[in-house]
């Protein structure tokens, strides 16, 4: 009798403490993600202190980047990042939307999964290999076949003036577009697929064609989520490093022309960080990295909120 009592006691005790220990252990690992985020932030913040003390806010607005004289301003790189990423969006968004619509609304059922798999496969190809392809295939292609007609027909715009040697802002934008199409299109597709079927059926029942259904019943419903997908692509473009570094030409000059070489925040870090010798140079590059981290975190938060809001409304509606 006593033994029975004891064993019951033991089981219930071990149950409580086992659960408690397990929860604390896995909880600690979960906490480590917050610690990681904090460390990431702190390391870059502390190590960029020197540059922040010397240049202050002028770091963001000065366009002089001179490692010899030790004067550093990040404007050319902020400019390069913004222009190349917007260019990428300009190219990638229409394509991504077309892909998302086709794969969620219009394509034959059998083709949908394999086609989306193939498009997402592009995202798994390492950036350095896309850069290698960019140097030897894409840049010459743009120089020989895309730039001449642009300068002939749109040459009156400052955007398409000057000589084009291959590595340029334009090439960087195109390669970024190629790299963000998988994420933008797959998130848009997921968002479009959350549109309730009765929306479509209602439009179809009124006699709308497949495209009209997409236009009046599907896209308005998915708008904010698609916007989130676009922002997510933007965040990807801003942080993308290797492929851009290899094709953008690495020049510190701010130029109006898309044909001139340029540099992005990520590419200047990749190019100069391991060769930077002075403390101030290293610190300035780390400050660029810190800015890059902040921008991409803000962009990611915005995108997640937009995408999540839609997905949550949908799942709430179902429950």
């Amino acid at each position, binding site marked *: 009798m006593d033994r029975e009592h004891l064993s019951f006691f033991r089981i219930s005790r071990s149950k409580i403490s086992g659960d408690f*220990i397990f*929860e604390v252990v896995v909880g600690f690992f979960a906490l480590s993600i*917050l610690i990681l985020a904090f460390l990431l932030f702190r390391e870059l913040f502390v190590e960029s202190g020197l540059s922040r003390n010397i240049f202050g806010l002028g770091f963001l607005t000065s366009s002089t980047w001179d490692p010899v004289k030790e004067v550093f301003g990040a404007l050319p790189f902020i400019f390069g990042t913004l222009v190349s990423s917007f260019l990428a969006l300009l190219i990638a968004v229409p394509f991504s939307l077309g892909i998302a619509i086709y794969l969620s609304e219009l394509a034959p059922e059998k083709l949908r999964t394999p086609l989306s798999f193939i498009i997402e496969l592009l995202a798994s190809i*390492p950036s350095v290999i896309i850069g290698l*392809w960019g*140097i030897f*295939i894409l840049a010459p292609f743009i120089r020989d076949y895309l730039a001449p007609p642009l300068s002939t027909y749109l040459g009156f715009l400052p955007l398409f003036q000057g000589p084009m040697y291959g590595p340029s802002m334009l090439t960087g934008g195109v390669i970024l577009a190629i790299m963000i199409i998988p994420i933008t299109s797959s998130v848009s597709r997921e968002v479009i697929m959350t549109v309730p079927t009765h929306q479509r059926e209602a439009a179809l029942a009124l006699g709308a064609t497949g495209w009209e259904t997409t236009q009046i019943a599907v896209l308005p419903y998915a708008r904010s989520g698609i916007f989130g997908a676009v922002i997510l692509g933007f965040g990807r473009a801003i942080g993308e*490093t290797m492929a851009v570094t290899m094709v953008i030409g690495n020049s510190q000059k701010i130029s109006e022309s898309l044909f001139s070489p340029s540099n992005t925040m990520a590419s200047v870090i990749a190019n100069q*960080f391991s060769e930077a010798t002075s403390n101030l140079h290293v610190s300035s590059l780390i400050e660029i990295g810190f800015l890059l981290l902040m921008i991409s975190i803000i962009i990611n938060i915005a995108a*997640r909120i937009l995408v999540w809001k839609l997905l949550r409304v949908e799942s709430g509606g179902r429950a």
Partner: protein
Amino acid sequence: MKWNKRKLIDMIMSNMSAACVVIAIIPLVSILYTVIINGISSINPDFLTQLPKPVGEPGGGLGNAIQGTFIVVGIASLIGLPIGILSGVYLSEYGENRFGRFVSFMADVLTGTPSVVAGMFGYTFIVLYFKSFSAIAGGVALSVLMIPIVTRTTEESLKLVPGSIKEASLALGIPKWKTTLYIVISTGKSGIITGALLAIARISGETAPLLFTSFGNMFWANGLDKPISTMPVQIYTYAIAPYPDWHAKAWAGALVLIILILVLNIGVRFITRRKYGM
């Protein structure tokens, strides 16, 4: 007439969106084609097993870079997989509270960390501390990219485990931690493994985090606290050099790397799909 116009627009738009898909696939096909065509001629046993030779000398290979990639990715996995998987277990099984939702949100946000920033973190956190580029620093930088991915995929795949299974186990008097370990995790195992392998595939090709952490080395690995050669960095070095001979090696290296990554990627999806089918 009006009806015809609507039908025409429908047809044009459908075809245009199909064309988007075709155009988006062209770069992929072109990349795979050029990598195979340019890379295949330089691939031979020597290329896979020998050390690189200086410029001008023929022959030589990427043996040390292949070895280095396995070492650095191995270090990253040793750090990233336990943290990622256990955090995912917490989020899915105990995470229905403010803290859990916040961690899940942060993990999601961290998946957007620019890879070059992860490299910088490896530099300031490890390289500056030990005053040397090292394989460990490279592994740490890669694990920064790996942890949030593994966390989220683990969380997602464990959330798919039906509640009825957990309840059945709990009803038998099995404590929650044992239920989690032996029932939930073993049911969601294939999802966790898929996520882990995809994360490994993803970081194996990363270059930017390694440029100033593991750096590079022309010799075989001689210690985890020393600079180490990796395939992506070696490909980058060869690609931007002005020597045609090095370009050929860059293509060959790219072919090896792409095969490694695509086999992981496609293989994983194939295996898991078949499992779910059964």
